[in-house]
Each structure stands twice: as C-alpha cells, then as structure tokens.
C-alpha cells in the first residue's frame, strides 16, 4: 500500500512538473503571439485577430495545469500565524484538513467545470469571434488540469494519511505542511543568487 502510494506520488510529481512546464510554454507562446500581433498591427497595419482570445485560453489551460505542481510543492498560501505555534500532531491535523478542503472545493469546481465542457460539446458551441473556436477544445484541456489535480490531491491525501496514522509528524509536514516564510524567501533568493553566478560568466 505504502510502496504503491509512494510510486503514485512520484509519478504525480513528475507529471505535474511536466504539466506546469507545458503550461509555462503555453504562456510563453501567448507572449510571442500577442507581441507579433501588436507589431504587425502597428508596423504593417495587418491584423491577425484572435491573439487575445487564444492567450486567454493559454492562461486558463496554463493555470489549471500548474495547480497540481503548486499543491505538491506546498505552494498554496496559508495563514500560518497560529499553525506555527501548534504542537506537531495538531499541525498535522491542520495539514490533513487543508488538503481535504482543497480537494472538496476543487473537486466541486472540476465537477461543474465538466458540466460546462459537456454542454459545449453537446451543442457544439463555438467562440463568438472571428476564429469561432470550438469551445470544447480549450475547455477539455482546461478541464484536464482540474482532473489531474483531483487525482494528485487524492494520492497526496492517502500518502499523508499513512504517515498521519503512523504518527510520523515530520513526514506529514514534508508532504503537505505549510511552507514557512523562511523557505519562501530562500526560494526567491535561490534564483537570484544563481543568476549572479551566471551573470559573471563571460
């Protein structure tokens, strides 16, 4: 059970990393598309049209594809004023509640989001623009992010529950504890310091 969950969690982490990176590339593609659109419009008076619509889809898809990445990297913002002062066991209870409540809310959004997708599919809805994009396409990709998140959250919750019932509080914290502000700051700096090293190379 435990080994299976560890394998599943490893897969979830890898998949979520790839998904987030793909989301990032989508955003980058949106930036390129929008820039080309602006430049053509201003310099050559040519309008591509639809760059705004497509970049909107990139945002919708990119953000849901990064939800699981944020979850597994403990990136969701939590108010930890009280939490930090709790004994480890109680903090672990909070961690379980935290994942559970995320799971409840996001599952609900995913469920009804699925309804939105199903309806677009059934009536063959197209966007109200010159592109007339079949809405089911971007919505399916968007919805896939929610579905993946729900799957990852279930795996994380189960794996956390194993450690929780073994009373292994440090493990619960590593899996799903709130990141301390020190960790947040260290993360920001990690990249800045790296860049300093990189900048010095010829």
């Amino acid at each position, binding site marked *: 059970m435990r080994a299976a969950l560890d394998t599943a969690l490893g897969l979830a982490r890898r998949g979520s990393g790839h998904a987030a*990176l793909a*989301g*990032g590339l989508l*955003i980058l593609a*949106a*930036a*390129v*598309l*929008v*820039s080309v659109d*602006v430049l053509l419009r*201003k310099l050559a008076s040519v309008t591509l049209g639809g760059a705004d619509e497509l*970049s*909107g889809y990139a*945002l*919708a898809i*990119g*953000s*849901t*594809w990064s*939800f699981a*990445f*944020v979850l597994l990297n403990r*990136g*969701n*913002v*939590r*108010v930890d*004023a*009280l*939490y930090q002062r709790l004994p480890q066991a109680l903090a672990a209870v*909070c*961690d379980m509640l*935290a994942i559970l*409540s995320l799971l*409840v*809310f996001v599952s609900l*959004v995913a*469920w*009804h*989001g*699925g*309804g*939105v997708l199903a309806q677009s599919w059934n009536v063959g809805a197209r966007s109200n623009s010159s592109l007339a994009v079949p809405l089911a396409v971007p919505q399916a990709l968007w919805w896939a992010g*929610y579905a993946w998140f729900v799957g990852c959250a279930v795996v994380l919750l189960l794996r956390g529950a194993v450690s929780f019932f073994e009373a292994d509080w440090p493990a619960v914290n590593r899996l799903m504890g*709130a990141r301390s*502000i020190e960790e*947040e*700051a*260290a993360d920001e*700096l990690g*990249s*800045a310091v*790296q*860049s*300093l090293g*990189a*900048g*010095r*190379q010829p």
Partner: protein
Amino acid sequence: MIATALFTLLALMALAIPVAAAMGVLGLVLGNMYAMLPVSRVAGEIAWTASNEFLLVALPLFILLGELLLRSGLAERMYESLARWLSWLPGGLMHSNIAACAMFAATSGSSVATAATVGTVALPQARRFGYNERLFLGSLAAGGTLGILIPPSINMIIYAVLTNTSVPRLYLAGIVPGILLALGFMALIALACLWRPAWGGERITSTLAAAFAGLVHLLPPLGVFLVVVGSIYAGVATPTEAASLGVMAGLGLAAWNRTLSWPMLREALLGTMRSTGMIMLIIVAAYFLNFVMSAIGLTTRLTDTVQTLGLSKWQMLFAVIVFYVILGCFMETLSMMITTIPIIAPVMQALGFDMVWFGIVVIVLVETALITPPVGLNLFVVHNLRKSGSMNDVIIGALPFVAAMFMLLLLLALFPGLALWLPSVVSQ
C-alpha cells in the same frame, strides 16, 4: 449572516486552510445555508470565465518578465553605474540601493523580485565598506517594495481586475508617489547619516568620466521600461500586450547578456507557473465567493452595515488603513488583496473616494505589509541573503522606512493630486 460568514472565515484561516480553499469552502457553506437556489452549480462557469480573461493574461506575463530579469544579469551593471553617481551623498551606497530598486521597479512588477535582485548585488558591499548593517538591510527591504508602486505592477493588475479600474490610469497614478517615496527613503538615509556619519561607511570615489561611461548600463532597464510602460501610453498596447512585449525584451536582454539558456528558461517558466497557479486558484475561489455573497445579499448587507456605523469618509479611511496594517501582519499580500478588495473597494467608492487614488493607497499599504513583522516577505528575503546575524537587525533597519510610507499615506490623503494629477493630464 455577517457573523456566520466572518466566524467561518476566521476559523478556516486560523486552521491554516489554504486561502483558496477557505474562500471556496466559505462560499459553499454560505450557499447551502442562505441561497434559495443551489449556487455551487455556477462554480464551473465562473471558473472558466474568470480564468480566460484577457487582462489577467498580463499576470503570468509580468511574473515571467520578473523571473527573466532576475536571472538576466541586468542588475549588477546597473547597480555599479548608479553607485558611481550617488555614492558621494551621505549614506553612500545606500542611495544606490534605493535608486537601483526604483529603477528595477520600473521594469518589474514584483516587490520581492526587486528586493532579491538588488539585494543580491548590493549586500556584499555592506561589510566591505563598513556600513551600518541595520540601515543598509532596511534600505534594501524597503527599496524593494517600490517594485509594486512604480509601474509595471502585478498588484495593480489584480486591483484593476477586482475593481474594474483602468490599469493605465493606475500605472500613471503610481509614478509620482513612487518617485516621492524613493526620494523620501533617500532623504531619510541622508539625514540618518548626517546625524551618525559612521553609519555611512567609507567614501567610494569615482571619476566623472567613469560615471558617464557607466551610464550605458542604465540603458537596458530604461529600454524595458519604455517597451512595457511606454507602449501603453503611446496608445500602442494594452497592458497585456505591453507585458508580452516586455517578455520579448526580457528574453532579448538575457540573450544579449548571455544568460539565456534552456535550464534558465525552464526555471523561469516553472517559477512563473508556481506563482500563477497559486494566484489563479485564489482568484477562481474569490470570484465564486463573491458571486455567492452577492447572490445571498451579503455584500449589500455588509455595505449597509458599514454605512449605519455612521463613520465619516476620513474615519473610514483610517479604519481601513488600520485594518490593512493588522491584516498585513498575518497574510501574504496578494491573497490579502484578493480576499478583501472586492468587499472594501465598493464601500470606499460609495463614500466618494476615487478608485484610482484608493488603489495607490492600497498598494502603499501592501508595501508596508511587506516590511512589517512577522510575515513581511521582503524582510525574510533580505535576511536570508545575509546568512548570519539576527532577523531583528532587518526588522529594526526597516522601521524608519515604514514611517516614510505612512508619511506618504498622509500626503496622499492631504493631496490626492499626487496620485491623480498625472492620469488627469495624460487622459486629456
């Protein structure tokens, strides 16, 4: 109804439930208790429409621009050339800290990125030249906060989306207060170092020729600023389009500095998506909660309740400032804005405050939240850079700068024109 909502929200937050989940669950609870029709069904529709809004696309783009600039090696040379111009002032390099932060702020929309970038370059100098460390650290933490006041600004985009305010007007409104605040910081440093000359460290000398030669290194940040902010006012681009052009400029700059590589881009993209995913989930939850609140009439009831309190305009403003200062001690700043602005802004609007002006006030309050303990993220960024010593040094060093921010708030209240003059001139 108000008491139930408030109590549920506080309980969820106190349990360290993630902000997005806390708002979502609160929406579900309120919907179940008070709504005539099941409200949760609209959650899907809201999630879709909220997350493909074109203006919001600017958010990941500005985050990406910050991530790129942070890694582009732009800050080092800029800092050096600013130091040549400013280090004769009492307080020496600390003025370059502020100026470099202000300049970086004009290319980046994030305060934390600004403090991290300039701090990394500047901090090694503090010990080398014998500066008073507390004040030096404080100048970096505080200077970094300029990132969100001087355009571009990620927080202003969030504010604009939540209140239907114009981003270009907000950006214009931030310029004068941003420059004023930077000058205020510098005046404060100069006064402190006139009073205690030992705090100012060794004098660094530079020739005028070298100073002029160094000006070249100010061109890249100036260029990014012109591309991102200039294109908006030249009427060429919307904020999202400007952000796209900025990302292209950031990529070009990194390529020019030979810092652009696949691992660098990969890190920048992952960093961007980590912030974007976190913020977008909160935005979806906030839109859902706001929908439920207005569907069950809670929003109107809240506004009515505040009005029956009979507070005058200025009393209310004072209350809001106190509220944000306290809340800023406990909450990450973007989630603080997303949770509170939809409720507070309409009240302020009903009292006759200009929404652009109030936006600037909120941004300055967010800046104070970034450098006040216990969760001022900029304090921790600067503290971590230092790797030794007590956190208290940074906190104490940043305190005088908090005073400067409150001075700015007072000035904004007395002379709203500080924020509103520039937008009014340009729009004519």
